[in-house]
């Protein structure tokens, strides 16, 4: 990811004020997703929206939790975690529970991005501290829209806490 492009990312909000989100520079997005097609399509959807952040991938719950010691060791914290729920080995809700019970990393915004709209999933996710719950649409066009909205909201509008590491 090249720093020049990142700095150029500006969003025009109502009133026409230009805002640069300096806080997001050099910080990746963590995508926790086991389905290779979904990984690819997510990447493509974000690419279509001209997302500047790098995307790190965890292909199951175990891989996702393996990031915790890395972050503790000084690896840049992700701006956002996109978390699927149905994962091999350790499922998404457990990953969510561990992140949100971590004294430091609990401030990382976690957006659940999953196919399910089961009440129990939504309820549990919020109870565990999910910051958002988004249905992953089947239609690619809509998925691209969703990716765009995530980008605008979580990576531009939203102000995450300052990374301490």
């Amino acid at each position, binding site marked *: 990811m090249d720093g020049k492009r990142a700095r150029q990312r500006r969003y025009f909000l109502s009133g026409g004020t230009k805002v640069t989100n300096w806080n997001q520079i050099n910080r990746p997005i963590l995508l926790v997703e086991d*389905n290779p*097609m*979904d990984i690819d*399509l997510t990447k*493509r959807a974000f690419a279509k929206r001209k997302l500047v952040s790098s995307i790190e991938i965890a292909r199951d719950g175990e891989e996702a939790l393996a990031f915790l010691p890395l972050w503790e060791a000084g690896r840049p914290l992700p701006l956002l975690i996109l978390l699927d*729920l*149905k994962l091999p080995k350790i499922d998404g809700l457990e990953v969510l529970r561990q992140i949100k019970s971590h004294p430091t990393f609990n401030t990382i915004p976690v957006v659940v991005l*999953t*196919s*399910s*709209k*089961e*009440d129990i999933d939504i309820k549990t996710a919020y109870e565990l501290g999910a910051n958002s719950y988004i249905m*992953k*649409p*089947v*239609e*690619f*066009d809509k*998925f691209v829209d969703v990716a765009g909205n995530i980008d605008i909201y979580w990576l531009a509008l939203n102000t995450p806490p300052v990374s301490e590491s």
Partner: protein
Amino acid sequence: MKDASETIQTPRKKNSSLRRKIDGNTPSKSGRDRADKALRASERRIKRNLKNILFSDNDDSLKDLTLSDVLDVQVFQTIMDDFFMLTNISNAIIDVRGTVLVAAGWQDICTKFHRVNPETHKHCIESDTILTKKVNPGAFKLYRCRNNLWDMATPIFISGRHLGNIILGQMMLEDEPRDREIFRAQARRYGFNEQKYLAAFERVPVFSRETVSNAMAFCTNIAHIISTLSYSNIRLARTLTEQEQAERLLKEREELLNRVGDIAKIGGWEIDMTTGKVMWSKGTYDIIEIDYDQPPAGLNEQTGFYLPEYRDMVENSLKQLIETAQPVVVEAPVKSKKKGTIKWCQTVAEAVTENGKVVKLQGAVKDITERKKAEDEIRTLNAELEERVAARTAELAERTRQMEAFTYSVSHDLKAPLRGIDGYSRLLLEGYSDRLDEEGLAFLKTVRQATEQMRQLIEDLLDYSRMERRSLSSREVHPLSFIKTLIDERSEDIAARNIKITLTIPDVVVKSDPEGLIQVLRNLLDNAIKFTGRVPDPSIEIGGEERDTTCLFWVRDNGIGFDMRYHDRIFEIFHRLHSTDDYPGTGIGMAIVQKAIKRMGGRAWTESVPGKGATFYLEVPK
């Protein structure tokens, strides 16, 4: 004793001497046999004659009694024959109608003349009836009969009624002139052979007044005996009859009681607390299986019939009954004496008290074996049923769990490959359409359409499944605002197709599950929009009406409608009345409506005329 109608009171004591005289005249053995035979015959006859009177409850029943009914004619004929032999006085016992019942030593003048000629016979009857009237019991009357002979009469009263007379007579008195001329004149008047008639007259005996008075005193005594004996006999017979009737009734009642005991398998018992006497009804004998002619078990053996483990309980109940005098009910099994079968018995026992002291215990014991069996069966069945219910519930819970796991899996996993198909076909279309010919593009389009259809199907199925499983809330909602929002959601379609929307729904508030109600109304609106798709002036009316306990809503369209034969099948899952080509859909929307409305405690139904539109009704509780 010159007066022909004088009555003489006879002192009773004089009779005893006469009586002894008669007793002294012992009859021969053959005479006794004859008398015994006659006695037995007369018993039968009296019984027969009395029967009607005796079986009448009426106090007036004696009014039809005649002397012949109660008088043992043969016995008295013998007595009066003997009397004639002793006294040579002609005699008779004649009832009040003039019927001669007993006659002894009658004179020829009477038997061959007076009683033969109709006119003189009439005099005899008149004499026997009229002249003998109004004589008190125990008195007698001396009179000259209508044919001019002397007679004496004493009445026979039974139960205060004059039934007849004992008459002595066909005689002349010593102190009366023996006037042949009167009789000669009678012979001429009635056409008797004068010579023979007068000869018969000469044979008529002559007695002194004293002789006839003594004889009459005896007869008065006889009359008294007849009177008291007969009356006593009647009384006795009556008492016997009454007793017989009472006994018969008692017996019939006992038989009925026994029969009832048989039918109901119930028996009675009584324990006299002062004498220790125990009495059982037949039913108790039958239950315990002891012969009816045996004495019942003694006071201390009453609880011995029960199975040993129940005896204490039974004894305690008896003690309680004796102490409190309050009725007790005991259910315990007994072992029958003969067959040794175990019978469950229910005993209801009560105490009889006198001056606050329990003097008797009485109880009804009922064989309730059948009932107990039935109860056991019911208990067993219930236990089995509970087990089965528990097993079935567990099975259902397991199925529900599996179903949920399945749905969860569908929810997560089924869409992922679909997303791949849709995503990559889209990317193919974007990046490679210039390298595909027309047919290739068409194939790609079909793949994407099929994907969309599959997506819709999965979404609808998940909606249906959610509607089935989700917990409902109950909140105050405004159906009208829901409808307005839903119309707004569909405003693009409605505007594009120029669908006329009419809202006649009242602004009511209902207590309902908002999500369910929205889903139902949305599906109905979508349905109406879909099926008006090919009519020239599409119009949809959404109406409502408040009722007592419910609200009725309807969505009416002028679309293609359907055949009413299928009005119920519309609500079946996957059931479609039109082809997917004409009207795309999954066949789940109406099933969701039905599922939701049922869970909300309402109902849904529909009416239609093919080609003229359809109306879908919803009735939900307020």
